[in-house]
């Protein structure tokens, strides 16, 4: 096998979903027997190929429904493509959706361990980083109260702190930086820079173009599931803004 240093490779990846989803065995049987199956599909990603080298910071932009989140999930190995192949190398810290893998009835502290376990971290690892996670999230006063009492921003802070506490080769951020106040965002920024300095790969999905400009050297522009631009962030974002504006 050919050796490669890329953190993420997508080879002609398409992801499609059925327009009409059959939800029951009963319906499946009936439709198969009377040959009335609606097999039309919608594309979430259409023939996407890309390589992201280790240590790169890449922003992904595009309108709603362009396939940005799907792309991130394929890269994380959560979604198996309908066509093509995805390869990722190294450990991952995926931050894909807020509140994922949190138990509202458990306290913040208990959630640190549960969420860490979901990310494949050991109890010892979480124990070792516990104080740091709590401090970074700035939730010292609330850490022993149930998560249902937290605001969205507080959950986001906790999620970011947990996922980034243990070193990872690749970090995936899906609209995570939009929440949280200015001081927390500054700390996030600092931490992402630290990861980049250490040689980690960072993928950011965001509608906030200044954030992408600032964090990412390279930007990929998606439209209707296909790549329409891939290059230096300033260039791609300028083009995107021009087209959006006009």
């Amino acid at each position: 096998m050919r050796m490669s240093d890329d953190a993420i490779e997508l080879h002609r990846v398409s992801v499609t979903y059925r327009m009409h989803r059959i939800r029951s065995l009963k319906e499946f049987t009936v439709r198969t027997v009377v040959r009335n199956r609606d097999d039309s599909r919608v594309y979430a990603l259409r023939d996407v190929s890309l390589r992201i080298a280790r240590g790169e910071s890449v922003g992904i932009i595009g309108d709603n429904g362009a396939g940005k989140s799907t792309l991130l999930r394929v890269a994380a190995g959560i979604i198996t493509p309908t066509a093509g192949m995805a390869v990722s190398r190294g450990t991952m810290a995926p931050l894909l959706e807020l509140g994922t893998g949190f138990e509202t009835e458990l306290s913040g502290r208990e959630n640190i361990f549960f969420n860490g376990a979901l990310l494949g971290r050991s109890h010892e690892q979480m124990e070792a980083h516990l104080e740091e996670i709590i401090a970074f999230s700035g939730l010292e006063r609330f850490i022993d109260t149930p998560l249902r009492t937290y605001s969205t921003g507080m959950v986001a802070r906790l999620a970011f702190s947990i996922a980034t506490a243990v070193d990872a080769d690749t970090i995936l951020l899906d609209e995570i930086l939009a929440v949280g106040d200015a001081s927390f965002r500054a700390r996030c920024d600092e931490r992402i820079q630290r990861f980049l300095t250490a040689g980690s790969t960072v993928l950011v999905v965001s509608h906030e173009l200044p954030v992408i400009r600032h964090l990412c050297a390279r930007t990929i522009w998606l439209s209707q599931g296909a790549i329409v631009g891939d290059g230096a962030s300033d260039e791609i974002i300028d083009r995107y803004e021009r087209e959006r504006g006009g």
Partner: protein
Amino acid sequence: MVQSTVVSATILERRTVAGEPLRLGNELRDLMQHAHLARQLVHRDLTIRYKRSVLGFLWTMLHPLLLMLIFLVVFSNVFRFQTPHYETYFLSEYIGWIFFAQTVTHVMAAVAWNGPLMKRIRVPPSIFTISATISGLINLLLSLAMLFVIMLIAGAPLRPTLLFLPVSLVVLAMFTFGIALALAAVSVFFADVREMIQAALPAVMYLTPIIYPISIIPERWRPFFKLNPVAYVLEIVRDPIYYGILPTPLTMTIAVMVSIASVVFGWMIFSRLAPRFHAHV
């Protein structure tokens, strides 16, 4: 396996290829990495579900206990004359059945419940089936302990063949795990499978000589009862407890083969369907 472990020690590579089933090696590696998650899920199954109730952990046991009691009261009079120590006869298989039925039901619920999670975080998809089987096994061991107490009180002999029981339990657990894997996968695609299984389980139970001795079945119908794989897997649990004998080589062979077939078949179905879970949960 060995090779991939060596490679992953330097850099972990993960490929997802369209149309390819889950690879056993990859799944095992992922499971190993998520061992702590499995422990947490089992812990949650056993405790948090009942955290707020007064009886706490005992709730987990209460449901099968009540059922046991009802069956005992109803049927011990019916079968008393032909079956000495009916309570031991019945319970020795019934607790095995409860393990099977509860685990299968629980797994389907767990996969549905954790669906949103599987869409957003990469966890080995079989981890919910594994943790549900393990928590089922822990409940089974507790039920067994209770059964021994009941046997002592009722004066039923505890025989040295009990030492064989761990082997029986491993076979039973394998059988259950395989069926649970297949049903978990199918129920992701078709929501009505859960209800169908709920309806089928009692039927299977009554077709298995759990609450009645096989001797009440007319001779000419018995060959049909011999086609039921569940009967063999449960028989090897009852033999060492109630009869104080080791299962016959034939029964044991069939039970082991059925269990292996169940795991192989279960994994075949699961590994082919799991890559498409994300579109259906």
